[in-house]
């Protein structure tokens, strides 16, 4: 092949990719042209993101993010990661991300202020107990008598109030690490988390703790579905939804889930 031909072949290839990108649903709708900016937590926790390094694509949410990006026509290099808190995500000003992915539960109240993609994971709520309460049986009656805790910004707070209705008012914390500290200090017996987070905390972070039960995910108030958060009215939503629907349909999402999230069927249902 002559030099000329190689050059023209490369040019053709570039043109083709350009044409492809231009024709794609997401073109011109992202913050930065040709780039897809995704926000995650600071820090981002396992098993959602491995080692707080989403760029690696390791961890459930990181892997889903790259799968969605690829489906939307972005290469791995075109994905930019930023960090954001919950408050930054819902503040009324300009956002520094196209989508924000950190186990945001979709609720109708939140949906009025921001947009959510279709869900990429349905998380059952689970009960994590400290070393002193591992013998508690997985019944609502037994759970009522425990001293409860949760992260104040999560839907777990509502779940404790609606499903468990404990005898003592729960204590609420700013993040997982503080709940961890409270369980370790025996200030609370039990904490409510989504199941993957609970399994991780119990296995790695909190010595002697145990996930004693999960709430059946069929329960109407327990449809804790995680969605990608976007600015209200973001035109990108339809593209993100389309991409998520595609990877759900072709089984990619399920295989990512199988790879990164433990089999959760071993945890008994709470009666």
């Amino acid at each position: 092949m002559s030099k000329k031909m190689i050059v023209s072949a490369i040019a053709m290839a570039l043109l083709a990719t350009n044409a492809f990108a231009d024709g794609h649903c997401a073109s011109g709708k992202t913050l930065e042209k040709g780039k897809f900016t995704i926000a995650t937590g600071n820090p981002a926790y396992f098993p959602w993101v491995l080692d707080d390094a989403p760029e690696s694509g390791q961890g459930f949410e990181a892997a889903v993010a790259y799968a969605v990006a690829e489906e939307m026509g972005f290469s791995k290099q075109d994905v930019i990661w930023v960090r954001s808190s919950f408050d930054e995500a819902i503040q009324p000003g300009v956002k520094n991300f196209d989508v924000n992915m950190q186990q945001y539960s979709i609720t109708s109240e939140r949906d009025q202020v921001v947009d959510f993609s279709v869900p990429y994971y349905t998380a059952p709520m689970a009960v994590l107990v400290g070393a002193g309460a591992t013998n508690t049986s997985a019944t609502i009656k037994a759970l009522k008598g425990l001293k409860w805790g949760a992260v104040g910004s999560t839907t777990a707070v509502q779940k404790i109030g609606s499903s468990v209705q404990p005898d003592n008012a729960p204590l609420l914390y700013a993040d997982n690490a503080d709940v961890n500290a409270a369980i370790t200090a025996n200030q609370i017996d039990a904490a409510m988390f989504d199941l993957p987070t609970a399994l991780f905390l119990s296995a790695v972070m909190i010595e002697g703790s145990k996930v004693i039960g999960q709430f059946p995910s069929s329960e109407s108030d327990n449809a804790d579905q995680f969605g990608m958060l976007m600015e209200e009215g973001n035109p990108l939503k339809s593209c993100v939804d389309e991409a998520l629907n595609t990877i759900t349909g072709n089984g990619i999402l399920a295989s990512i889930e199988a790879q990164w999230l433990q089999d959760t069927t071993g945890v008994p249902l709470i009666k």
Partner: protein
Amino acid sequence: MTRREHYEQQQRRKSLIIAAISTIFVVVAVIIFVPMTPGWEKVQKSFFNATVLAKTFPKLLDAFKVNIMIFAWSAPAIAVLGLMIALARDAKAPALFPLRIFGAAFTDIFRGVPVILTVYLIGFGIPGLGLPRPWNSPFIWGSLALILTYSAYVAEIFRAGIDSVHPSQRSAALSLGLSERQVMRDVILPQAVRNVVPSQMNMLIALQKDVSLLSFIGPVEIFRQAGVYKSLFANFTPYVGAAIIFLIVTIPATRYADYLMARQMRERR
């Protein structure tokens, strides 16, 4: 009316009119121009949302009771401990020198560390040693963190009050045959405490706000409750609601402190 009085009255009237005009101008400008900003509608929806405020305000008031409770038992403890630290730093007998060192170290440490760090370290650290319930309660240890920090500040104010009593009073009292202890208790302290009441009022106001820092170690007081609603509604209005409740308490308190301060100034003149 003398010519001078007439002139002064005119001047007063003039400045009153100017003050009124400039105030009206500023208020009107805020009312007209802020809503003209492009983001106003969104800001209004997420910070000043009447529906969300109505839904959350009663619960916020309820949570504020927790603040009042923590404040109510912390404030007296702070007053007592603060006074003791001040007296320790003021101990004159050579044998009590260790007490002075302790007082100085105490104020240095607890004034130097941010309150939130003290709350974290004591609130999670001491219960972590393995205390049984209910003695590991975050209410106890969180309050202790507040008490220690605020005592350090309050002690310094008391010390300033003690120093503000002229040394001649001490000499005079001693020469009348009073013991050191009697001089402090009956002569110096009554004046010292009176002198610093307005400054201590400001500490009370600050404490009232800092009670919210206990939310970091578990207690669901007004700030945490507002945060829960913020997350639930994805709306910052509950924080504005909490701010309103704080202001309802702090504005009268600040005004009262100002009044005490002004009265003291008048008396000293």
